[in-house]
Each structure stands twice: as C-alpha cells, then as structure tokens.
C-alpha cells in the first residue's frame, strides 16, 4: 500500500477509535482523572479537539502561506461571541444564530484581511495585532451590554437544543468536536493539496516569483486568510457550546501568541502536526493545573513546585527549547526520526 493511502487508513482508524471512546469505560491512570467515558474526560478531549482545529486553521495561514498573523484569536472569539450574543440577547434559535455567525465569519476576515494584506511581514503582523487588540478592547468595554465585558457571556440553557445541554450529553459535544476536527482536517488537507493550496506554499517560499508568474498573490493570501478565519470561527462556536459561555480571555493578544506556540510545537506546515500541537497544548494546560495540587507535585520544594504548576511556564520553556533546537516541532522531529530509521535500515 502506498504511503499516503496507508496514512489515510491510519487516520480513518484513529477516527473510529476516537469516536468509540465514549462507549469505553477504560481508565488510563495519570493521563486522565477518570475513565474514558466520564464526562470530565470527554469534556477535556472535546476541548482538545477544538484547539486542534484552531491550531489547524492557524497553520493554514501561517504554516502554509507564511503569513505571520497575530490576530487569529479575533476570529475564534468572533465565532464564540456572535453566536453567544445571537442566542442570549437576540433570542434567536441555534440554526439562525449559526447562520449569522457564518456570515460575519466570512465578511469580517474579508474586510480585515483586505486591509491588513496591503502590508507584509512585520508590519502585517502588527496590523493584525492591532485589529485583534481593537476587538479585545471592544469586547471588554461591553458596548450596549452585549458582550458581558470582563465577566463574559453565559449561554442560557434554554437557548440550546436539549441534546447539547447537560452533563449526560457531554458525549454529544464530544462527537461534535471530533466531527469538527475531522471535517476541518479533510477540508484543510484538500485545500493545501489543491491548486490554490500550492500557490499558498509558493507564496510562503517566494512571493515575488509567484507574481512574476502572473498570479496575483494578494487574492490568494486573502483566500488563505479568510478560509483560515472561517475555520477558526467554527472552532469558536463549538468552544462556546462546550463551555456554555464566552469569556474575554479568548480575545487577548496572549491567546494568539499561545496559538503560535501550538502550531510551532506541532510543526509548522504540517497539518497533523498542528492538530497535535493544539491537542497537546490544551491537554497540558488543563492537566498541569490539576496536577499541581496532586500529592506528588505538592510535595516538591517551592522552587520546583511553583513553576511546574504554571502551565504557561512549562509551555513557554518547552517552546523556547523547541525553537532553539527543534525548529520543526513534533512533526519535524518525527520526520527526522523516520529519516534516520530509514537510512539505518538501509532503505535509502
């Protein structure tokens, strides 16, 4: 079987296994606090999938097209907040709320991207940061009482269909998140292997050469920008549903920076690497907090205990080590391992 078909089969198998998890009562000690079908575990995994999707979306614009955008959080937050506002304040039902969100999730990045893409490199990064900051300030100011300001916006449970509410239905949210990730992955994979996707990668390598060939890089960059933002917004919607509310933390610049960490961790420019990066980040973020009160860790001397109980510290440190020594992230390390194994076996 060819390499790519093997990989596709592997993905399908993984998907089936993951889908079956909620039926599985196995407990993996250390990895999760409860058995695999417990709501807590499923909740964590669902969040991990959401972040995997988000990281994937960022990989499209940063890893494949080479656009260092610091504003990705804006679109994730848009997905979450617009749906939340539509449900909570405008009393729309879910399908209509989603419709409005989808529309805004297309128009906003189109407009913002059209403006931002007039610049390149660092100025581009800063303009995207500026817009994201503007969004963050906007949310925090709680204009017309819409966004809930610092406290965030909770979803009234009456606004959602019964299948998505309640602890017993966590598995539905789990499947929703898994489904989102699967669909996003397929879409992303199709996109990067399609002609526009190849142009994206060419732009990353050498934009001038692309324009010399008669292709307008601006349009393709905008396309990557909008597609990526739309995916991020969808992730935001699912996030909202899982969390039952939106909070302003997801609009902050540090959140986008954390996204950057996720994608670099996993491996820039590889789809599954980014997904793994997102999953790993969210997992570590939640578990480290939990672990810090665990007896094993609590008995450590303060100078070890304190840093290790701060997930961002561990991640930041990991990130620094990765950037310095393993610029390819997980995926890069895996690839070089594979290459070494191949040459060792004399396959070359």
């Amino acid at each position, binding site marked *: 079987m060819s390499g790519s078909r093997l990989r596709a089969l592997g993905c399908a198998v993984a998907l089936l296994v993951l889908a079956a998890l909620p039926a599985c009562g196995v407990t993996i000690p250390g990895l999760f606090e409860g058995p695999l079908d417990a709501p807590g575990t499923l909740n964590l995994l669902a969040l991990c999938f959401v972040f995997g999707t988000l990281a994937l979306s960022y990989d499209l614009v940063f890893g494949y097209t080479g656009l260092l955008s610091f504003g990705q959080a804006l679109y994730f937050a848009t997905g979450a907040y617009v749906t939340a506002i539509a449900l909570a304040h405008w009393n729309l039902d879910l399908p209509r709320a989603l419709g409005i969100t989808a529309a805004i999730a297309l128009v906003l990045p189109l407009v913002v991207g059209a403006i931002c893409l007039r610049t390149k490199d660092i100025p581009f990064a800063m303009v995207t940061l500026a817009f994201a900051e503007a969004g963050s300030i906007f949310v925090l100011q709680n204009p017309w009482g819409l966004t809930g300001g610092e406290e965030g916006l909770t979803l009234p449970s009456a606004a959602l269909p019964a299948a998505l509410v309640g602890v017993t239905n966590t598995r539905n949210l789990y499947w929703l998140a898994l489904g989102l990730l699967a669909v996003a992955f397929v879409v992303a994979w199709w996109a990067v292997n399609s002609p526009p996707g190849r142009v994206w990668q060419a732009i990353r390598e050498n934009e001038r050469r692309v324009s010399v060939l008669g292709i307008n890089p601006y349009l393709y960059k905008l396309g990557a920008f909008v597609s990526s933002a739309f995916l991020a917004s969808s992730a935001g919607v699912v996030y909202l549903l899982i969390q039952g509310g939106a909070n302003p933390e997801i609009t902050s610049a540090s959140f986008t920076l954390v996204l950057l960490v996720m994608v670099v961790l996993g491996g820039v420019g590889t789809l599954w690497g980014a997904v793994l990066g997102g999953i790993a980040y969210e997992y570590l973020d939640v578990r480290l907090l939990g672990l810090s009160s665990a007896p094993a860790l609590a008995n450590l001397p303060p100078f070890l205990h304190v840093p290790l109980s701060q997930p961002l510290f561990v991640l930041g440190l990991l990130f620094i080590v990765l*950037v310095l020594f393993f610029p390819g992230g997980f995926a890069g390390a895996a690839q070089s391992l594979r290459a070494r194994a191949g040459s060792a076996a004399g396959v070359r």
Partner: protein
Amino acid sequence: MLLAITGLGLGALYFLVACGLSLIWGLMRVLNFAHGAFFTVSAYCGWLAANALGAPGSWTAWLAAVAASIAAGGAFATFAELALVRPLYRRPVGQVLVTVGLALATIALVQGSFGSDPRDFAVPAWMGKTTAIAGAAIPNTRFVTIAAAVIALGLLVFFLRRTRYGLIVRAGVENRAMVSALGIDVGRAFTLVFAIGGMAAGLGGVLAATYYGSIDPGRGSAMLISAFVVVVLGGLGSVAGSAVAAVLVGLVQQFLNFYAAAGVGDFAVVILLAVVLLVRPRGLFGVS
C-alpha cells in the same frame, strides 16, 4: 490640565518601554515580545528590593527599588539576548518566537510566585500628595515619572550622539551589513542595545509601580501593546520619534477616554496604529 499632565505621564511610561523596543527593532530587526516581561520582572525586583531595604514609604526604599529595577531589567535583557536571541541570528522568525516563549514563561513564573493579584507598592509620602498647577491638583507621581523619562531621553540622546557605540547603533539602524564591512563587531552593539532597552523598561516598570501604587503581572503585556503603537508611530529605530509619538499617544488616549467614553481612547490608539502601518509603515520619523 490634569488630563494633559496625566497624558504626559502615561506618555513618559510608554516612551521608556518603547525606546528600547525601537532600537532593538531598528538595529536588530527583532520584534521583542519579551519587553513586557522585562518591564514586569524588573518591577517585581524593585518591589522586593524596596521591601528588603528600608522602611516602606521611605525614600531609601524607593530609590533602592529604582536602582534594583533598572539593574534587573538590564541584566535580564542581556541574558535574553546572549542566550536566546543571538543563537537565532540567522532565523528572524525564530527570534520573534523565542521572545514570545520567554514572555509567556516569565509572566507565568511571576504569576505563580507572587499571585495574579496586584500587590501594593509603597511610595514616599511626598509622592502621594498633590501639587496645584493652574488650578488642578496633580499627583506628584506624575512629575516624577515625566522627569525620569526626560532624563532617560537625555541620557539616551547623549549616548547615541556622543559615544562610539551610539554611533555604531545609529549607523547600524540604517545599514547593518555596512557597519560589519567597516570592521565593527555588531554583535556587541546588539547586546548593548538589548541591555539599554532592558534598563529603560526596568525604569518604566518601577515608575509605573509608583504611578499606580501597585505592581501587577499583567501590566507589562498591556504596556507592550501601547509601546508597539508608539514604536510604529514614531518610526522604528528613532528614539526622538518614540518620544514624540509617546507623548501623542498618551495625550490622545487620556483625552478620548475622558471626553468620549472609557476605552475609546485605547481603541482609537490601536486603530491609529493600523492606519499608520498601512499608510506609512516607516512611521513618522522612521529610518526604514
């Protein structure tokens, strides 16, 4: 009047953070996301020093805090440049990323060690009082902040215009390769610029603590965003530009926040950043 002086005071703080960023970007083409972390760590070091030496609220304690803050900022920045930024010289994106990682890790460490809540920062009694100018009662902390920033500006300008390393920095901002081609080791200038930026950020950190009466792990990141605005507006690599832009930003922010609505000023400043980047990426005085 109160608004104007407050705006100037804020502008002074922004300038202290921005001037280092501006030089680092101008000379090294590095977007130093860790600058906010320099600011925060120094402020905490200053706070620790103040608590350790002298009674809270005394001048000795405060001066110790200032000294410690500046020293900590310089030391931390130097370490960051030598250990993290320099090895990634050939990978500019990697350099930016490593500063991001440093920022995240450092702020998290501070939060873990001291908690996320603000801690009180004791200032000498005189600073807590106000002085009347043109009928408005202005807290003395504003004057101290502005005075310190002006002194820093003066020192910086002196350094740039009258010392050899200042000359190297000014030339390097324009054309780094040619400076090497004259037989000058630009690497040393890089470390120096990081150290200066760190010291200025440290001064900014302790002055912000004085200004607000507290230290806070999150303030550095908020300052960083404003500092980015100032740097871009004022022109990457231009200290004078940063000074002018900082004053502008501080004033605009204060007046809009007051006369329009809270937050409008911040919003306007960020939009201003976007506009300048689109229209004139080099900034008002920038040497591209």
